[in-house]
Each structure stands twice: as structure tokens, then as C-alpha cells.
């Protein structure tokens, strides 16, 4: 059965696929859960000792969907300001244009969504400022499964 609603200004009987607000042939995004991931980074000095030393911080949520879900916001890798004394919300953070020694990474698996922050000292000791890194996330039932709803 057809179930279509045209966007404002279009005739539902003539509208092309991109001109429809609702189209029963296509899949909508359905929210499974939303929440917050947060890591509290301390003020610290990482001693490099002439080598490369990493210190990692992680927060995770187990989503229970048993498949790899789509999620918002579209945050992948972000270089953070290691000297910032202000807390950082990744949803509206403009990352450094050059690589820094503090990297945030958001990863998803069929079990978890993870916020991972890595601090690195390379050759020389590095002092980092204390700040909190927050990600407000929305996970969808829609997942990484191939799908082709091409409409001829």
C-alpha cells in the first residue's frame, strides 16, 4: 500500500523521491537510545623518557543491539587542545587544524559505543591541562547491513 506525503509545495502525485516528506519505499532513522559518554581528564605530566608514551581514557555504553548501529553526532577522530582548561563537548567542538598530543576517537561495535581519548608524550615530557570531554550521543536501530531501496 502506498503511503506518501509530499514536502510543502509539491504535488504528492508528481513528486520525485527527494520531494517527499514520507515515502513508504524508504527507511527512516529510528532512535534506539541516547545518552552521554564522558571522560574526566586530570592535570598531569606524561614523562616521555626519550620515547613515546600514551595514556588512554575510555568511557563506553553497551547498547545491546547485537549489530553495528548508526549514531549521531558524526564525530570520528578529533584532535583536542591539550592545554585547554575548559571542558570540551565534542558535539560542537571545532578540532585543531593540526595534530596535537590529545586525540579523541569515537568507535562503534556490535556491542558498544566508545569514547576514547589518548594523550601522548613524544620524546619530551608533556604537561596536559585538566578538562572533561563529553559526547552526547544518539544510537539508531538502523545498522550496517547492506540495503538497496533504489526506486526506478
Amino acid at each position, binding site marked *: 500500500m502506498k503511503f506518501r*506525503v509530499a514536502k*510543502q509545495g509539491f504535488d504528492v502525485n508528481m513528486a520525485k*523521491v*527527494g520531494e*517527499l*516528506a*514520507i*515515502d513508504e519505499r*524508504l*527507511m*527512516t*532513522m529510528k532512535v534506539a537510545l541516547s545518552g552521554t559518554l564522558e571522560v574526566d581528564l586530570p592535570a598531569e605530566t606524561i614523562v616521555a623518557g626519550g620515547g613515546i608514551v600514551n595514556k588512554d581514557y575510555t568511557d563506553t555504553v553497551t547498547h545491546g543491539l547485537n549489530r*553495528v548501529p*548508526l*549514531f549521531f553526532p*558524526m*564525530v*570520528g*577522530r578529533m584532535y583536542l587542545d591539550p592545554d585547554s582548561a575548559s571542558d570540551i563537548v565534542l558535539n560542537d567542538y571545532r578540532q585543531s587544524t593540526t595534530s596535537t598530543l590529545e586525540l579523541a*576517537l*569515537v*568507535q*562503534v*561495535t*556490535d556491542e558498544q559505543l566508545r569514547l576514547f581519548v589518548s594523550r601522548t608524550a613524544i620524546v619530551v615530557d608533556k604537561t596536559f591541562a585538566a578538562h572533561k570531554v563529553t559526547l552526547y550521543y544518539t544510537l539508531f536501530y*538502523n545498522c*550496517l*547491513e*547492506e*540495503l*538497496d*531501496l*533504489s*526506486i526506478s
Partner: protein
Amino acid sequence: MLGIKISKNGESVNTSDDNLAFSSDFFTPKIYKIKKYTSNTTEAHGLDYAPMFIALYNNALLAGTDVYTIGASVSVDSANVKVFMPSSATEVWVILFADGIE
């Protein structure tokens, strides 16, 4: 103007938009295609405009083949989707929407 509104359970459809589960007055992204790529690819997406998209890749080298991150070098135009595999990835997933970049 005609349209459709569906209220949340127990709410009136005539009150605040916050009480709506759905309204055709608002933009609803619609998924058109989800596809996994394993090599650099340029292919027709079948729409005659540049669609919205999301791309994820697995960082097979550093995190594992089953760990995915938003990103990857993907672009679209009014005819094609173009995928460039990150060197550390074995899969790039592209989610194409029927909604155009407007």
C-alpha cells in the same frame, strides 16, 4: 496545507510539537541505500541530485575489523558516489539518503 501529525502515546496531537512522534512539517531523513565498499570505487547512485550521506570505516589496522568510526574519504555529486579507502581500513560503509543536500 495538508500533512500528517502523530502524537506520542497519551498526548494530544494539537499541543506542542514536543509531544509529536512524527510530523510531516519537519524534515525526516530517509535512507535510500547502505553499501559496503572494499576498494576505491566510483559508481552511479541513481539519483539526479547530490544526496546527503554518512560514511563509516573500520580501522582494521589499529582497532580491529569490527570496530567502526565515522569518517573516510567519501564524496557525492549529482551522479556518483566516490569512495577512497583509508589505508588502515578494509571496509567503508556509505549510507545514502534520498534527501538532497539543500
